């Protein structure tokens, strides 16, 4: 019974897409009902797999149409769910389910909601299929469906010119990526005469010849385009900005995670190249560059969603750096950060959507002082912002800590100064992340209230629910870090390193041994750890103590005075004796002192992000060329 769950989850979503398209016209209730119902069933089916896969350590396989391997060759399409695939599947289902709930409120004013839900289910199905499949070509198909659905959803608000522009760029650049993947897949078929990932892994056995190097380079570059590492990141920044916010959340929560999953699957399981230091250095360098460029570009943005988009890119840099270390601790850290990124970035996008709903703009220079009108959104935003900046005790802190420890341990062990530079970059990027969220905090939620937004009000409850769920998850995963590590990260990292089980389950017991496959030997992920729960408890107790003492003491320690209705100069903001007026320090002006020192850097970098699609295409081609070239030099 249980082995049908993964494929059912994927197929139901595809079915749901068609059902919405057919029956959605009847009434809005049926349309929304089908979409949410199907998404919920899919969610339940995937969550039901936690016990057998994560805890009991099973691997679930399923052959489409029962086309099992004949005489040792896997011709049929197989689904294979190990802990690594399931880990990402959990992220995927959580993201699209919450996004679905949020869309119910968010899309109030949009037309063509039927198309939205059709594409939404299509996108969800394709990403879920991508992380669960065990077949290389099937993976490519899912990537293509994912790209299509993403492009169409980016252009969903096609009254806006930027939506069309972003969609076109996404389509062109995404197609180049898919084409590279397809070429790589074709070359792999030439070498192995099979498309099953488990069998390919055992046939090539971690050794490379010219064809497989080319294929490896093409596939990694193609998946790099899907996970938006620099220099492939340009479509992400545009698409996240222009898409409806519920879709931006899906993009950052699962679409680029799908690319990350693909990279992990390829380098660890299929090509088994992670014991080579050249590949480690390649990934770490790409990751470090990605996080730095992402965050510096984010500091220069003056649109809420575009800023978040660049942060998405930057955080993926952390993930790629961590998984590029090739150690168990690094994998744990990378997976944990990927998961946390899904949570806090999804949350931040949802708050951006709430601000957009309430005020009609995401321009940081036109907002301000919303915290009094939108308290729930503000609290959720602050949780997300502190999480992404890595302040204790939120989840970003736990995963970033692991990342630092993983990189620096690696640096000390290998003595390679590149890893030390990567550690420094990671730590500096973290404070820059904090800086740019301080900017958003000041420009959107605090600061002076913009008179234009005087009638903004808190978003409906249906939109608050997903935000609150995600905020709570952000805190919980930070506090109960050990539980996450034990039940999700350790099995997933173990699955990535223990290849022979993956092969044996698919091809029959003993197959891996016969092919001479051995698992990567990795020391268990050991690292020092604090107990955030105790600290949080202490913090809350002391905080409340001091707060109550301060707030209740009236007689001896001074009174608390608050202005009532009407104007009273005593409670007005200080303006050197002048009348109070609106003079918000806008988002664009906030880090003048920083930007003036970096003038030259920003001139070059903003010039490179020219917005011209042909430039972006040439970055992708160049990036792919670099990856392939490095692989040819190092792997031969």
């Amino acid at each position, binding site marked *: 019974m249980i082995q049908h769950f993964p494929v059912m989850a994927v197929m139901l979503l595809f079915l749901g897409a068609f059902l919405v398209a057919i029956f959605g016209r009847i009434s809005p209730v049926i349309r929304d009902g089908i979409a949410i119902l199907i998404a919920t069933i899919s969610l339940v089916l995937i969550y039901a797999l936690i016990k057998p896969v994560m805890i009991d350590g099973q691997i679930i396989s399923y052959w489409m149409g029962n086309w099992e391997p004949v005489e040792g060759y896997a*011709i049929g399409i197989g689904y294979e769910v190990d802990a690594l695939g399931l880990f990402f599947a959990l992220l995927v289902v959580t993201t699209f389910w919450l996004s679905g709930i949020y869309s119910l409120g968010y899309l109030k004013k949009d037309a063509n909601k039927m198309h939205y839900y059709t594409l939404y289910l299509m996108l969800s199905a394709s990403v879920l299929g991508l992380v669960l499949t065990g077949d290389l*070509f099937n993976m490519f*198909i899912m990537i*293509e469906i994912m790209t*299509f659905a993403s*492009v*169409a959803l980016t*252009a969903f608000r*096609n009254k806006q*010119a*930027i939506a*069309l*522009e*972003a*969609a*076109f*760029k996404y*389509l*062109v650049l995404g*197609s*180049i990526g*898919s*084409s590279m993947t*397809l*070429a790589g*897949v*074709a*070359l792999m*078929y*030439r070498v192995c*005469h099979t*498309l099953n990932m488990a069998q390919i892994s055992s046939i090539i056995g971690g050794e490379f010849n010219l064809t497989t190097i080319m294929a490896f380079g093409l596939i990694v570059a193609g998946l790099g385009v899907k996970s938006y590492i620099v220099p492939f990141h340009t479509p992400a*920044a*545009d698409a996240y*900005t*222009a898409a409806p916010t519920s879709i931006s959340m899906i993009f950052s929560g699962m679409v680029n995670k799908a690319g990350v999953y693909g990279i992990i699957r390829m380098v660890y399981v299929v090509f088994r190249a992670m014991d080579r230091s050249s590949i480690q250095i390649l990934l770490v360098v790409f990751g470090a560059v990605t996080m730095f460029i992402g965050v510096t570009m984010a500091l*220069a*943005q003056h649109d809420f969603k*575009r800023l978040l988009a660049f942060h998405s890119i930057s955080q993926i840099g952390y993930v790629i750096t961590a998984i590029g270390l090739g150690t168990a601790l690094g994998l744990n850290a990378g997976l944990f950060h990927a998961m946390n990124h899904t949570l806090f970035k999804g949350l931040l996008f949802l708050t951006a959507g709430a601000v957009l709903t309430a005020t009609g703009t995401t321009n940081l220079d036109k907002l301000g002082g919303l915290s009094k009108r939108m308290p729930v959104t503000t609290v959720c935003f602050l949780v997300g912002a502190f999480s992404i900046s890595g302040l204790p005790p939120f989840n970003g802190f736990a995963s970033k800590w692991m990342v630092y420890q993983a990189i620096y341990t690696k640096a000390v062990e290998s003595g390679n100064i590149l890893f030390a530079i990567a550690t420094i970059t990671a730590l500096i990027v973290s404070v820059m992340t904090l800086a740019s969220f301080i900017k958003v905090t000041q420009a959107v939620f605090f600061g002076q209230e913009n008179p234009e937004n005087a009638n903004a009000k808190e978003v409906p409850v249906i939109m608050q629910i997903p935000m609150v769920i995600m905020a709570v998850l952000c805190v919980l995963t930070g506090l109960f870090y050990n539980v996450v590590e034990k039940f999700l990260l350790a099995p997933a990292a173990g699955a990535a390193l223990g290849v022979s089980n993956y092969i044996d389950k698919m091809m029959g017991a003993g197959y891996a041994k016969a092919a001479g496959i051995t698992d990567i030997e990795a020391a268990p992920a050991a690292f020092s750890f604090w107990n955030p729960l105790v600290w949080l408890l202490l913090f809350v107790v002391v905080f409340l103590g001091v707060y109550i003492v301060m707030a209740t003491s009236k007689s001896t320690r001074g009174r608390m005075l608050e202005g009532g209705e009407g104007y009273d100069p005593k409670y007005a903001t200080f303006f050197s004796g002048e009348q109070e007026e609106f003079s918000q320090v806008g988002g664009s002006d906030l880090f003048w002192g920083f930007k003036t020192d970096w003038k030259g850097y920003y001139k070059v970098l*903003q010039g490179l*992000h*020219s*917005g*011209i*699609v*042909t430039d972006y*295409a*040439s970055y992708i*081609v160049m990036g792919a060329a670099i990856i392939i070239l490095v692989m040819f030099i190092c792997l031969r």
Partner: protein
Amino acid sequence: MIIVNYIASVFLIVLGLYTVCTKKNLIKIVLGLGITDYGINLLIVSIGFNPGGTAPVYYLADLLNGVAPNFFVDPVPQALTLTSIVIGACVDAMALALVIMINRKYKSVDADEIRRLNG
């Protein structure tokens, strides 16, 4: 000669990418994507090709007894090619649809003018 196919496919892929990277007209960019696709399709078909091979329509018994010729064209790449062609057609259709809508909004199909999202 099979080697000609490989050379031609690489030529097509490079030509397509070159078109995408240098031409400023959006329609030409879409054409470039198409050319890349055809190059890859040619590559896949060539991979499955066997000189002198026939269509793979046999009984399993014929194959095992050696009655049938034991070389035939590999059917899997052909299936892949078909899928890829379909996807390529979809890409082109969608891209062209977007170009039409972009033209309505921006009054231009020049990539240099369609850059409101930058920096």
